[in-house]
Structures are given as C-alpha cells and as structure tokens.
C-alpha cells in the first residue's frame, strides 16, 4: 500500500501538528492537533485540491481522554481521491475553530455536530441547534445520553 500523497506534504508543512497517520481498508486518516485545524484545512483545500468537504462529524469516546474526536471527510473532485482528517477535542474544552470559512458546507454540518454531540465551534456564523428543538437540553449522540430519551424508564425488552 503506497502512502497517500497528501500525507508527505502535510508532514512537511505541519511537522509538529501531525499526530498520527492510520491506513485502514485503503483509507487514510490523518490525526492533527486541534489548534491548527483551520490552517491545515486551508492548506489541504488550496494546495492539495481537496475542494469538496463531504462530511463533518464528532465521535464520543466516553471514558477516554481526550473524549471527543472530530472527523472531516474530504474529496478532491479533480484527482478523485479521499482524505480523512481527525482531531481530538478535550471534554473540558469541547470547542474547536470553525472550518466554515474554508468550506461553506461546514456551516450546517457543524451546527449538527453542536446540536447532537455538543462540540462548540469558535467564530461560527450561525451556531444554533438544527435537528432538535431550540429549547432541547442535552446532546443526544453523546454516549452518556440514554437511547430512550431523558427521564424515561429504560426499555425493558430486547433491542438487539
């Protein structure tokens, strides 16, 4: 398996920020430091051509530190390549700079991430809940949020 061409360039340009590179089933994930996320995203878009932001989401690794992981799935329309960027986010400071300045797509995707996962975005143009009602309490996709909803008896039957 040859290394993704973007990895070498990222390592060269942001040597101190690249924390980890994982290849699984032929897909490359690059874990980077949270503080440089906007600079790295601008670089991969402008210099490496990853012009389409497919998806933004958060993962909750409850019980681990750092608790959250932000995931950015990118696509390059010209070379037809995928790249995944990840960045860890601490529970005590569950906020990260918005990348909506780099890709407009990120606006709603980050709103969804705030709504369901409770990760906040600095400098976001319109950080409101998007899927849940405005007055909802809690963030449903967190692992410590009960699947049957808050304040209800757990389902007694089998769900799997």
């Amino acid at each position, binding site marked *: 398996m040859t290394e993704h061409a973007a990895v070498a360039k990222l390592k060269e340009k942001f040597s101190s920020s690249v924390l980890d590179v*994982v290849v*699984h*089933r032929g*897909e490359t*994930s690059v874990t980077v430091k949270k503080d440089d996320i906007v600079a790295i995203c601008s670089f991969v878009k402008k210099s490496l051509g990853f*012009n*389409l*932001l*497919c*998806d933004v*989401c958060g*993962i*909750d690794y409850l019980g681990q530190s750092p608790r959250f992981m932000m*995931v950015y*799935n990118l*696509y390059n*329309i010209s070379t*037809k390549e*995928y790249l*995944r960027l990840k960045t860890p986010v601490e529970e005590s400071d569950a906020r990260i700079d918005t990348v909506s300045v780099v*890709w*407009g*797509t990120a*606006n*709603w*995707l980050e709103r*969804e991430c705030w709504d*369901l996962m409770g990760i906040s975005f600095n400098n976001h143009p319109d950080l409101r*809940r*998007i*899927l*849940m*009602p405005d007055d909802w309490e809690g963030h*449903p*996709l967190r692992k410590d*949020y009960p*699947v049957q909803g808050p304040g209800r008896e757990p389902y007694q039957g089998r*769900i*799997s």
Partner: protein
Amino acid sequence: MAMTETMTINMGPQHPSTHGVLRLVLELDGEIVVKAVPHIGFLHRGVEKLSEYRTYHQIIPLTDRLDYLAPMSNNLGYVLAVEKLLGLTDAIPERANVIRVIMAELTRLKSHLVWLACHGLDIGAMTVFIYCFRERETVMNIYEEVSGARMTSNYFRVGGLSADLPDGLEKTIRTFAEDMPGHIATYEGLLTGNKIWQKRIQGVGVIKAEQAIDIGLTGPSLRASGVDQDLRRDNPYSGYENYDFKVPVRTECDTWARYHVRLEEMRQSCRIILQALDRLKPGPILADAPKVVLPPKKDVVNSIEGLIHHFKIISEGFKPEAGDIYQEVEAPKGTLGYYLVSDGSAKPYRMKIRPPSFVNLQALPQMVEGSLIADVVAVIGTLDIVLGEIDR
C-alpha cells in the same frame, strides 16, 4: 418620503410544495425574497443514535427510511460501507453486483420520476404528474416482486442480496427499460417546448460552479452547474466500471439545466439497466463468508445446521475489526455517504450518514435570495429534497 418595510412570512411545515416538513421563514420586500432561513428537524427520528444499539444487519431497515423515495440506494450505500469495513468488497459475487446495479438504476428512475412529477405539479404543469406516477407504479411493482415491499425494500444484505430475482422478472424489467425512453420523450413533449414551463424555470435558482462546490452541492445539481463529477464513473463501486454510460453536464447553472440533466440521467439509467440485464448470468447471490453472511433461506428452513447458522448471525451479529471507513455512492439526489466506526463489537460504535439532501438544501438561501417568492417553489422542486434523509 415613503417608508418601506419588509414582511416576514412562514412557509411550511404544512405546505404542499415544501415536499414534506420543511419550514422556511421568508423575509419579503414586496414580492422579492430578501432572506430565506430554512428550519429542519421535524422528522428527526435519531437513526444514528438507534444504529449504535443495533447489530449491523438490523440497521438495513433503518436506512430504507432515510430517502424513502430511493430506498435501495440507501441500502446499497450502507451494505457497501459494512462490506468495506469487513474487507469483503471483492468477495461479492458477480450476479449480486449486477442485480444491485439494476436495482440502483431502477431506484434512480423511480426517484427522478417523483422529482419530475412534483416539480411539474408545483409549477402548475399537472398532467405530467399522472404520467410519471404511472411509470413509477411499474418500478414499485418490481420492488414488490423482489422484496415484498413497495417502498421500504430492505432487499440488499451484507455480502449480497436477501433473495434472487423471481422467475420472469427479468423480462418485466427489460420491457420497462425499453419502453422508458419513449415515456421520457412524452414528458419532454409536455414540458420542454412549453412556454410557461420555460419562463418558470429558465434563469431561476442560478448557482455557479464555484459556489456550488463551496456549499457542497452534489449529484444532478452540481452537474447542472458545469462540474463533471459522478461517483459511478469516478470512484466506481458494484462493478459500475463495466457499463457504458454518459454523465450529462450542463453549464447554465439554473433550474432549466437541472431539468435537462435529470432527464438525460433517466435515459442513461435505462441504458445501464439493459446492459446489466445482458450481463446477468446464473450464479450465487451471496458471498462465501459464512461468519458474516446469512445462509440461503432454503437451508434455514430445511436443515438444523442452516437454522443454527442463521440464528447465530441474527442474534450475535458479526464483529468487524476495529477501525473506521467512509463509503459514498451516487444516490439519485447526490452523494450519499456512510461513515462507520467499529470498536470490534457487533454494533457500530458510531454511524454518520451524509445525506445529499441535507447538504443540498443548504444552498437554498443563496439560490432564492433576490428572486421572486414564486421562484422559491421552483427552487425547492429542483433541489429534489427529501426530508426523511435531511432529518434522519
């Protein structure tokens, strides 16, 4: 000096042309839209949360209910994602892949037929609605024959298909795919030369290529803005590289261009279906991976080993190696992506769905701001959104 004020009106969620439960708050200056703010979430069912509490096989029925106008495309994206997570992608038998392609393209036709019907109806061309739903009925019947359900098909399985095609269905599909171009010509005859239709959609909802990519528009809407991108050709899956088809691209960037791109896509889908029917040879429909793939139904009902095998996979599931993958397919409405994270257990640790409509809807405000309020209806129609996958 006269004072002017803008007026704020609420469109939806119970509005026939918002295609479900979309709510738009429109700020108007006379008849001109100054600002449009979409409000979504009325159909949120927590599919991603529910998925974390189900085995991989149990999630397939949930995916039917995302884009309920194109259930098999959702099934396909999901099973491909799970197969990639398992490293099973190359083990899918040829017959299963060919049937998946036939079904995915029938689904594209089905979805585009609803788009054209409702788009026409919204703008006032009511006749085309009846014609499109007549053809859609044929696809629904094919759905029913293969899966038992007209809408929530739940037909694909991890590793293959739930059942083979019933006898005689190939002929029905072939007749449909041969007749369909004639029907498309009928729709064109009703609409393309129609002066009212032209006036209502030409130059409406313009979005340039650069803005479209920035906002993440995909599918027919992106191709109508002059960007030549189609995952079936660029990142082929399920053997799409074996089929000869054109990717229609237009450069007008307006509703008229999107109308033509989708009509041409329907014709290309018919070509793909006919080629796939020619490739269809007898053979297995499930991959040879007994730890993951459900045994054929005849083994389950006829032998104790088959029953035990079935029971173990259904009750315990299978455990993919820890890791994460992202799989995209070209759904009728755009790029549908599944991001799956496995922690080595029988249930996904996290599943994130990237629905095309969610991202495409985000482009609505910039497409309607500065245009007439009547154009909002045309733009909602041309974006071809389904709230089931937006809200999940």
